[in-house]
């Protein structure tokens, strides 16, 4: 990515406008608009059931939104309307990678194989859509070696090198979380969507996660959008926080601003008795 973009006013990478998602009578997300800037770590937070994962599923194409627009800008002028793309094309063309709240690894395949599957599309091209690869052409072997090198790089970054040849299902919970991030990063994403990456991690592990995410922001042209409950992660590393409650955006800004927003405190901790009295008086109870 060009250096000017990150030093000057950071440009927008993802603009979500008036996103609404209805499941029958249930409105999971209502008229949500927010932007994520290039090179930033944007956090999406909110109490349970606020619609965060629904937003993720809309962005990554697993749900088709009822209404709204999601525009993803690559730095080079290419832009994609995500609501018009199929899920796998969002990953392939718009280069949005994601992880899952309940980890989805290929448990029966080794750690290295998991990362090689992430290089499917470039390898498919190099293998001449299988026809050339069947006869072991040199270009495919080179591409495969490059894929293994990329995998080794991310194994190294996530501290999984020693476990490269072990089945993914054998890894500990924390290692599986890291492998999922490594696998997503192997697709060379422009936007990385992490769904609760710190869930189930201990303090040391979530500290390591913070470092990994900061490393990605520093060294790679990948912007991060994350859902998180662990406030040490959210407040520690994010540049921008969007707060959802009952599918509606209630706050948007820097971590400090959001932390002190009374509406956010209300959503998480409930409101003071005095406020309840005021409201009760208003409705005439």
């Amino acid at each position, binding site marked *: 990515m060009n250096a000017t973009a990150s030093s000057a006013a950071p440009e927008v990478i993802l603009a979500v406008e008036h996103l609404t998602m209805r499941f029958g009578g249930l409105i999971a997300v209502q008229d949500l608009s927010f932007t994520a800037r290039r090179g930033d770590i944007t956090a999406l937070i909110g109490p349970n059931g606020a619609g965060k994962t629904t937003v993720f599923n809309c962005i990554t194409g697993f749900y088709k939104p009822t209404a709204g627009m999601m525009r993803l800008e690559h730095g080079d002028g290419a832009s994609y309307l995500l609501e018009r793309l199929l899920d796998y094309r969002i990953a*392939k063309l718009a280069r949005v990678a994601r992880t899952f709240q309940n980890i*989805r690894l*290929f448990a029966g*395949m080794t750690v290295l194989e998991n990362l*090689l599957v992430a290089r*499917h599309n470039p390898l498919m091209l190099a293998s001449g859509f*299988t026809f050339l690869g069947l006869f072991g052409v040199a270009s495919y072997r080179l591409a495969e070696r490059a894929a293994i090198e990329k995998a080794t790089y991310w194994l190294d970054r996530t501290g999984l090198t020693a476990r490269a*040849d072990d*089945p993914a299902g054998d890894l500990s919970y924390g290692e599986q979380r890291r492998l999922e991030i490594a696998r997503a990063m192997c697709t060379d994403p422009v936007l990385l969507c992490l769904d609760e990456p710190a869930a189930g991690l201990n303090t040391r592990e979530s500290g390591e996660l913070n470092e990994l995410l900061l490393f990605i922001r520093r060294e790679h042209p990948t912007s991060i959008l994350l859902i998180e409950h662990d406030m040490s992660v959210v407040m520690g590393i994010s540049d921008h926080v969007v707060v959802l409650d009952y599918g509606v955006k209630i706050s948007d800004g820097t971590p400090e601003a959001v932390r002190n927003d009374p509406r956010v405190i209300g959503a998480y901790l409930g409101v003071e008795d005095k406020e309840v009295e005021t409201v009760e008086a208003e409705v005439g109870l």
Partner: protein
Amino acid sequence: MWKSTKIEPASPHDLRSAFKRASLGALVALGLFGPLIGLRSDQGPTGALEVTPRWSWLAIAIAAVFLGTFVRALLFGTEPVVVEGRLPKSMQRLIAPVGRLVAPAILLFALAVPVLFFNNRYLLDLGILVLTYVMLGWGLNIVVGLAGLLDLGYVAFYAVGAYSYALLAQNFGWSFWICLPLAGMLAAFWGILLGFPVLRLRGDYLAIVTLAFGEIIRLVLLNWQSFTGGPNGIGGIPRPSFFGIPFNDDEDGFAAVFGLPYTATYRIVFLYYLILGLALITNWVTLRLRRLPIGRAWEALREDEIACRSLGINTTNTKLTAFAMGAMFGGFAGSFFATRQGFISPESFTFTESAQVLAIVVLGGMGSQLGVAIAAFAMLSAFELFREFEQYRMLVFGLAMVLIMIWRPRGLIASRTPSAFLKQPKVVPAELVREGRA
């Protein structure tokens, strides 16, 4: 859940529980064997059915069940006995080098069979039959074992291959080597046709639709009389020639050209090597594909479809290629079948065939090439071995299946070899590999 019970001397309590268990077993046996063994129906002199009770037989069967259960309960307790699936490390190390030699040894033996048993027509025919099923098993293994799509209608592609070959060879007079790839392509085309409607289905639902597809193909072949000959089938399908040299006792026949005394066995030996070659091509292609992105995508699809899509894999194309590849090899096997038999009819392509091929794949261990080959060999030779037992053959077969599924619930070779490694390949244990449902 999984525990092995220690053997301890019987205590009165154990005796009581063993007795209770044995009585329960005897009761179940009474219900089961009562009508099966206790009553015998014969056709009487007037043509009506006569029922003769066989109480002594029934008593013997129930006593055997009672005693067996009682002794077993005393020895091993009433908990179900679970055989340890994995051998101790020291044993594994001892067996590992032998294990590596199994596949080459089998291959050498397969190559030597026509030389060793040149005069034994029966064994050569059995060899051809086994190899046909090995090839079908390897073909289905792509769909079921690698891509995890449960296909109960595989015989449809076998039929498409056989009829394609028969009709092309008869109507256009084309040679085997032209018809073979065409039959494979047509079968692959039908594989894709089947693939489209079932793309959204998984597991059991997919199995039902593929089952129906297999039946549809068979019924079309049965009823489209003007084209397929209906139940009469197609006869007089051209026999294969040795690249243009026919296997007969003419002057330009195979024996005469090569200056050998004429026997009909040359044709059988040629057929044997033909199917061996076709099966080995299937194996080679499958092993290569596993190391290519498409093969990894198939296995990833079996493990987790949603994760596949999140990584930009077009799951539609991936499933369709799996169906097409599996169907293509089924088609090859089908055209071989047609040229070997010289006659085909819809009767050869019933659901039983699909079930048998699927049983071979499941028994061998889904995804394991060697396991499928061993299972095909074991199953078909067992069928031949128990031929004398006639109606008890299926009983023995069922019993063997049950025993093997208790002993090795995931097939003979259930562990998975990784397609790529960084330092050293480690086998993935069977418990972690998903099977049968994508």
